């Protein structure tokens, strides 16, 4: 029987069946489950790396050493990994090397909707795009074959609707792939000008060879409609699935290799239809290449550059008569910090002190949401520290700002920013919100948690020791639930002319599955101060506030902000 599998799990299964020995990744929605799933197979090695650059370097190292290897990341992770990416296209591989990148059109859980297909093109790295779980598994296996045959890294590109959908998959056994012998080759693996100049030629020759080959590769295929030849559509990934449902009268060119594109094959297809359309999410990536090749087509003059496509959007654009129901206007339900989240109290204090907060990427980005409204800037992983430094330098040190970063993000790319602040003497204050996990992506371990991807005990790097080694002299560790301690440490840090770090510790409240205390309200004067915390467990009516015992975790932060002592720890019934 076929198995209903999450596409990310199918990618992991494909890697397993392809004999992959080493996988390295940094968690990022919608890619996280690949590593989590792969590590469960016997006889493989998989790890959380501190960031995507390291993950790719690990995979390249394993490949050069002779193993089939994989690195996985979300789209913005490729920005971090771009440095090894571009040059790994020059070195090529020994064991097959596959990089999985998961884009997020519509930004379900991302800070931008960049189109990673351009990375494939500009780095000259082949890219395959599956459209469901079965294809994800098949394409992953094919990617390893192509990688070894053509001596190149190969991308697998997913988007949220592919990565996070489940469909049926036929399982196979693991291939017994031997470790290839490593042979020293300065001209292939040592990229300095003399050898890189030669490798660049190899890259160009490979590009030409691949561009020819893909025209006959069977994952680039034509599906003819029996209802005439009026409409031809070029598409890939999940959009193919939408087109199949929306336009049964269209003949489809399903692109499996988005880089290089099978231009010749598409050109031939174009001559068989009256009007050619390119339907793709995000940028006119395919469309522009077709137009450059002189193939007439319509694309982004009809479809938006933004957000996701859907069956309905395609029906609308093709004027198919469908009644389009209108959504009711009801209050939104934005994501919020959980009841008992240790970040809440810290943002309350920062708001109270009217600080400009340079924030970062993680659950704590939600500190920007009302009523806390405490975060001013969010850019990319690790940017809080560099930006706080920039604020100080721009204002000759008078800006009333503070940097806030999570533990996992600090390890990912905050450390270099901190070294810069010490070295270039900006005297910033940094709060590390240490909840002992990578929260937003669903609780992944990282180098400071003391556990590895498997959940086994691992050496833990200590955040305060890292800060000390970066040259920070003023370091304070506080309990994130102790608002007095947080406030006093922040004030001290802000007043100090030196770089200071406050590590606000408390494990993510969702990690604690045990029985929890509960807060009770007695003689509430309805001043509304606790409402400023934005705790989903607290609500207010005319007679005062009430605390929902089903949501309350007894963190006690509300009791700390209540000026009348009306909230106390109670007994859970």
């Amino acid at each position, binding site marked *: 029987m076929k198995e209903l599998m999450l596409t990310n799990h199918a990618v992991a299964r494909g890697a397993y069946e392809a004999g992959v020995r080493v996988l390295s990744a940094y968690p990022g929605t*919608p890619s*996280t489950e690949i590593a989590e799933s792969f590590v469960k197979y016997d006889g493989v090695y998989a790890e959380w790396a501190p960031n995507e650059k390291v993950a790719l370097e690990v995979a390249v190292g394993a490949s050069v050493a002779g193993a089939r290897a994989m690195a996985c990341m979300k789209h913005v992770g490729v920005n971090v990994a771009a440095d090894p990416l571009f040059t790994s296209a020059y070195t090529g591989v020994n064991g097959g090397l596959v990089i999985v990148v998961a884009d997020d059109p519509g930004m379900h859980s991302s800070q931008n909707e960049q189109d990673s297909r351009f990375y494939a093109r500009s780095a000259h790295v082949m890219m395959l795009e599956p459209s469901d779980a079965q294809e994800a598994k098949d394409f992953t296996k094919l990617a390893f074959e192509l990688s070894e045959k053509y001596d190149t890294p190969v991308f697998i590109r997913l988007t949220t609707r592919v990565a996070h*959908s*489940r*469909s049926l998959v036929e399982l196979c056994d693991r291939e017994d792939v031997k470790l290839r012998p490593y042979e020293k080759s300065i001209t292939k693996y040592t990229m300095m000008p003399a050898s890189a100049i030669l490798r660049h030629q190899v890259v160009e020759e490979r590009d030409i060879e691949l561009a020819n080959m893909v025209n006959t590769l069977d994952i680039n295929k034509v599906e003819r409609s029996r209802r005439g030849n009026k409409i031809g559509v070029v598409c890939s990934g999940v959009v193919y699935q939408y087109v199949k449902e929306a336009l049964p009268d269209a003949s489809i060119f399903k692109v499996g290799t988005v880089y290089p594109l099978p231009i010749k094959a598409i050109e031939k297809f174009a001559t068989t239809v009256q009007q050619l359309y390119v339907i793709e999410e995000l940028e006119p990536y395919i469309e522009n290449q077709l137009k450059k090749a002189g193939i007439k087509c319509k694309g982004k003059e009809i479809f938006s550059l933004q957000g996701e496509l859907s069956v309905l959007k395609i029906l609308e654009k093709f004027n198919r008569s469908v009644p389009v129901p209108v959504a009711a206007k*009801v*209050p939104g*339900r934005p*994501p919020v910090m959980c009841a008992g989240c240790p970040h809440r109290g810290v943002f309350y204090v920062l708001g109270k002190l009217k600080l400009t907060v340079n924030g970062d990427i993680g*659950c704590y980005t939600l500190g920007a949401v009302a009523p806390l409204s405490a975060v001013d800037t969010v850019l990319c992983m690790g940017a809080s520290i560099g930006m706080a430094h920039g604020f100080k330098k721009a204002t000759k040190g008078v800006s009333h700002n503070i940097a806030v970063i999570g533990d996992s993000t600090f390890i990912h790319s905050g450390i270099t920013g901190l070294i810069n602040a010490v070295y270039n003497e900006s005297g910033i204050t940094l709060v590390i919100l240490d909840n002992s996990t990578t929260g937003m992506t669903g609780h992944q371990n990282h180098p400071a948690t003391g556990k590895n991807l498997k959940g086994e005990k691992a050496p833990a790097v200590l955040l305060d020791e890292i800060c000390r080694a970066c040259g920070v002299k003023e370091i304070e560790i506080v309990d994130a639930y102790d608002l007095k301690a947080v406030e006093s440490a922040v004030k001290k840090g802000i007043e100090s002319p030196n770089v200071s770090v406050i590590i606000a510790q408390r494990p993510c409240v969702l990690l604690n599955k045990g029985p929890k205390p509960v807060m009770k309200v007695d003689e509430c004067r309805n001043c509304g101060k606790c409402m400023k915390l934005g705790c989903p467990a607290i609500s207010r009516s005319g007679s005062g506030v009430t605390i929902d015992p089903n949501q309350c975790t007894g963190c006690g932060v509300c009791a700390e902000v209540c000026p009348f002592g009306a909230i106390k720890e109670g007994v859970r019934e």
Partner: protein
Amino acid sequence: MNILIAGVGGQGTLLASKVLGRYAVLCGKDCKLSEVHGMSQRGGSVTTHVRIGDKVHSPVIWAGAADVILAFEVLEAARVKHFLRPGGILLVNDVKVLPMPVITGAAKYPEGLKEDMLEEINGAFFIPAASIAAEAGDARSANVVMLGAMCRLFGFDKEKMMQAVTDCVPEKFAETNLKAFALGYEKVK
């Protein structure tokens, strides 16, 4: 068949979709599920999509195309009701969870949502799934109560659905969940 499951992050929409997916597999049907992970899960609106048929392409359901909506909260039902096809069934867990803009006073929880939906949609059913689940032994299994109710309304194979529930929940919670399923099945008419 298109089933849209809507709720608030943490209400178990994902488990409900997995059970329905498993049911499809047990029935030998093609099936696709679409889920949302990451930021939206943190107490925000979430939807998961279940599509079952001989051959399914799109993993997501579009407005006007859902045969069933399982809504785990009243406001979330109102938010997605335009996904329902004419003649479709809207099955709602009759509870209110206040969103943050309502808690802070920036917005009001609309009045009369339930009455409006009952009037507008012939196939609208409201069931007290949370209290039925509490009766079964765990208020958190309201999602499985809803599945029980849906199973009856649509004449799904009860045995196969119960098998799917058993396959999808941790062993130690199987009994409570099967009880929740049975109560949901019995209480809807």
